[in-house]
């Protein structure tokens, strides 16, 4: 059942390859059906969320070092799976407006393959499987950037993305090998292994470096602005919405439970990185002049907050971190898609080149307002719920770091308003060679609407998600201290 879910997008991708390129409507139909079908199937997993885990294990490799084909979904990974399937639907739907029809098929195939690798990663219960998907998911993005954005700067961004992340993957590989030399199995999730403290630190450092690069976290984010900016918006919606959570997922499921002592040892460093990310991302977003890059930097800031939640080690901030991950996925995807719609209309995302779109596109304005306010952390929207619950939890154990992180609330207001007002307000301006922008079409309204509905829903009732994240999950239990009120 879980395997079916994981490979379903790949099957649909294969099906797409059997359809002639020219038959655009059939291609679109199959791709959307694939995304919707995967989402529908993943909803079946929702009931397993609060209780335990669903898993499937088959033998894979015997011998001196064992590995199994082990897929599993538990109360934490189910949210990553659902986020993936939920965001792929609008991403695939948004890709319909890809400008070159001849290459639409290849692009849709890559999107579905990307979903497959992500689902594989989030369901992997075996370290070998995890590692394979970890590097495999670079390929669809790389190919999409090289072949489908098709500009010299996009190609540069693609290589930057690939090399930087492969370097991270290499370090992870070294860590995995060193780990397996001691455990003699890739089935590490349910066992506890006595590592010497020094070894534990080295292993944690290797895992953490890879995870930090993929998230990315300051100062390992050099690949991010270019890759996010050059990607087609439907792709970056998934990269930022889902793929950026792969590293955080790795922390929650592998690094923290496997190396609890090393996690404690490195916690101050990780917290410093988290706070730096939070503030640095916010400041860069304030100075940024391109709408898409601005959203990218805001991502850096918000994911730093999740890192803070993980390494503050308490039962409030950890589930809130998952909430924040889902919420950020929704918000980032919505914003990137909206910014993409703007780009389709004005031909640019440079804030200096256009503005005042609210005058001609009132529906776009309402959508931008909701997404922008969610980034700003307006109470009542999901961004606030995640942020607040993380901060109130983290403050109990790490008041100093959290106090620094609080500055981001104000800085977020500055850059969110820059984005919102820079694109929407002021006198109407568009580049000279562009016709007056049209308002959002029904397809565009429809594909972003579910994201906005969820942003509202999670903002008004975060407990719906929060209560389904097991605070005392065995994966995170070792490192976590229960906060008692004084």
């Amino acid at each position, binding site marked *: 059942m879980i395997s079916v879910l994981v490979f379903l997008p790949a099957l649909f991708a294969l099906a797409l390859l059997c359809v002639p390129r020219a038959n655009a409507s059939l291609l679109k139909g199959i791709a959307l059906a694939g995304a919707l079908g995967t989402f529908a199937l993943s909803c079946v997993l929702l009931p397993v969320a609060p209780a335990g885990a669903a898993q499937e294990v088959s033998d894979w490799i015997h011998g001196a070092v064992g590995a199994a084909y082990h897929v599993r979904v538990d109360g934490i990974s189910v949210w990553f799976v659902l986020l993936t399937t939920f965001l792929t639907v609008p991403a695939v739907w948004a890709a319909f407006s890809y400008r070159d029809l001849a290459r639409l098929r290849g692009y849709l195939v890559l999107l579905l393959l990307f979903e497959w690798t992500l689902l594989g990663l989030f369901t992997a219960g075996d370290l070998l499987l995890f590692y394979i998907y970890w590097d495999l998911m670079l390929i669809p993005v790389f190919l999409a950037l090289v072949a489908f954005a098709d500009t010299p700067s996009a190609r540069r961004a693609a290589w930057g993305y690939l090399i930087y992340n492969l370097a991270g993957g290499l370090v992870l590989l070294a860590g995995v090998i060193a780990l397996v030399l001691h455990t003699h199995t890739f089935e590490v999730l349910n066992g506890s292994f006595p590592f010497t403290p020094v070894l534990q630190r080295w292993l944690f450092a290797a895992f953490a470096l890879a995870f930090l690069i993929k998230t990315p976290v300051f100062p390992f984010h050099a690949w991010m602005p270019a890759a996010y900016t050059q990607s087609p918006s439907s792709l970056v919606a998934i990269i930022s919405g889902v793929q950026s959570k792969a590293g955080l997922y790795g922390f929650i499921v592998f690094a923290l439970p496997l190396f609890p002592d090393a996690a404690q040892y490195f916690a101050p460093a990780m917290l410093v990185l988290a706070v730096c990310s939070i503030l640095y991302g916010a400041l860069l977003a304030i100075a940024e002049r391109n709408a898409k890059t601005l959203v990218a930097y805001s991502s850096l800031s918000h994911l730093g907050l999740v890192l803070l939640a993980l390494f503050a080690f308490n039962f409030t901030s950890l589930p809130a971190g998952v909430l924040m991950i889902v919420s950020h996925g929704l918000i980032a995807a919505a914003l990137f898609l909206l910014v993409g719609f703007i780009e389709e209309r004005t031909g640019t995302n440079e804030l200096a080149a256009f503005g005042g779109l609210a005058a001609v596109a009132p529906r776009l304005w309402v959508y931008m307002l909701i997404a922008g306010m969610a980034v700003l952390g307006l109470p009542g929207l999901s961004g606030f719920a995640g942020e607040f619950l993380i901060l*109130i939890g983290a403050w109990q154990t790490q008041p100093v770091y959290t106090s620094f992180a609080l500055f981001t609330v104000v800085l977020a207001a500055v850059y969110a308003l820059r984005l919102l007002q820079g694109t929407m307000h002021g006198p109407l301006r568009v580049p000279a060679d562009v016709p007056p922008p049209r308002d959002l079409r029904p397809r565009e309204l429809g594909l972003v609407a579910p994201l906005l509905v969820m942003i509202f829903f999670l903002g008004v009732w975060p407990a719906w998600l929060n209560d389904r994240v097991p605070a005392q999950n065995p994966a995170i239990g070792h490192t976590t201290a229960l906060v008692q009120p004084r």
Partner: protein
Amino acid sequence: MADFFLGAVPLILLFPLVGAATIALFGPYVQRSASAFIGCLSIGLSFLLTVGTSFVIFPLSPAQQTLYTHSKFVGYWAHLPPDLIIGFRLLIDPLSLLWMLIITGVGLLIHVYSVSYMASDKNYRTFFAYMNLFVFTMLLLVMADNFLWLLVGWGGVGLASYLLIGFYYDRPVAVLAARKALIMNVIGDVGIMLAMFLMYAHVGSVSYQNVFGHVATIGTSALTWIGVWLLLGAVAKSAQLPLQTWLPDAMEGPTPVSALIHAATMVTAGVYLIARAHPIYDNAPAAAELVAVVGGVTALFAATIGCVQYDIKRVLAYSTMSQIGYMMLAVGAGAFAAGAFHFMTHAFFKALLFMSAGIVIHALGGEQDIRKMGGLATRLPFAYWTFLVGAVAIAGIFPFAGFFSKDAIIDAVLKLHHPYLFVFTVVAAGLTAFYMFRLVFLTFLTGAYRGDHEVHAETERTMTVPVAILAVLSLIGGWIVLPHHDELSFLLRSTFADAPFPQSMADFNGWLSFGVLLIALAGIAFAWVAYQWRPQIAAALHRSLGGVHALLTNAYYFDTIYHWLFEWPVLALAQWLRDAFEVDAVDALPALALRAGAYFGSLSNRWETGYLRRYGLTFVVGAALLLFIYLFVAHGATAGAAP
């Protein structure tokens, strides 16, 4: 009947929300007037239900006056370990009812007023949607039963205020003003969040009931910090020092917005917050004193600036700031009922002043500069008389509403034994009378009309009727508190039952009232002398006090100071990080690794000659070498090591 109103309490909150959603979703498909009708109707229904609920709640005994509504369909907002449950309850008690009455009542009048004030605007429907959204969030703010939902309402009114300040979004000034207002409000949100962090740490809860029930268990220093952080939220929302600079700029919004949000309701949310959190301030005297000092200083500070402004709405904005300073002073002094009382009367006369000014602005085609007005009393008599009522009321002239409420506050400050604050309030009272009548003289009297716009007549009934109602309320609104018969603090008695400071305003200090009245009259007289009888006096004052005048005109240069102290460094830092650090450090890290890789690559490249035989030979030699090592070195070592 009682059960009906108590059961319908959630509807009070729901009607404006449904109204806003209906206008937003269906507005484009119906007539403009239908949007306005929906907007007014939803607020009207809320008002009726609020009045009904008041008639049910106020007669009850104090113990029964606090009512919680329970949501049946959803559990709670969040459940944090060990037992922090943030629920969805609504709280109805006399304090929130007072605010709800003003929000829906004055809100209804201003909605009706807007029907014709905004009639020519192209975003007419949007305006009503935003206004309804504002009323919803403001009601949420005062009906919340915990600090989290208060914060949700708090942020919501900030959003509505942002949207309405920037309502004319094609004007860059309005866009900037909106941004400034929202950012300053967010600073306040951080304050409330910090206060909640402390409450969670010390009480494990953020609901009013639990926090206020356990104030005794929180240490004084923590309690003081909670009070200070709440005050940060309050000063941001209520435009008190040092976060006051956004309010004058907020006057870029349409005038009904200024009347509703930036005079009558939203900016008093800070006062509500302090009054609501009074158990904290009762037990943290240092925090309470800070509240009083902030209020007192702001009252005087804003009043001095109001004396020199020329934009009619900006004068009113500074006057709002100053009057809210009075309210903050009252709640800081512990006289919560007096603060609430002044909130109520201020809502009447300040909304009245804004709406009368709106009639003038409307008639002059958008002109707001009082130097281009004058002599309008004969052309706009209705606006003149109603504005005059408002001015008399705010100046504190007997028997208008402002006299009673301001008197209650000054009386409380006198009991506080805080001489500076007492002097501040009295001086501010005189200044208030002065700048309001300066406004009256320059706008409506003093020679002939100086502007170049055509003066339209004031005929729309929807504009004049609400103004007239407010004028009547500005006269009689203060009579709820009369000497020896204080109805208001009686109504509020259950909320402030445990406050140490005596809440009753019934013991009337005749000499004090008379003295303050004389000072107000002196202020009016001076305005008359300087602007009506001998205008050259004002000109001479202006000349001789040029430096002071510049200082006041620029609002003590707060904008400039903040620009260089906060805005500029942050932007410069951000710009430096983007242009220098990002390129030289962040991008250099992988570039360095790449360069190192390329260097080692070039070293090994020398062996790559392309001659296959060379590769083969290297391979053979290497293999032979390994074999040699394996056979003789490694084995020999093992053999030698073996015992």
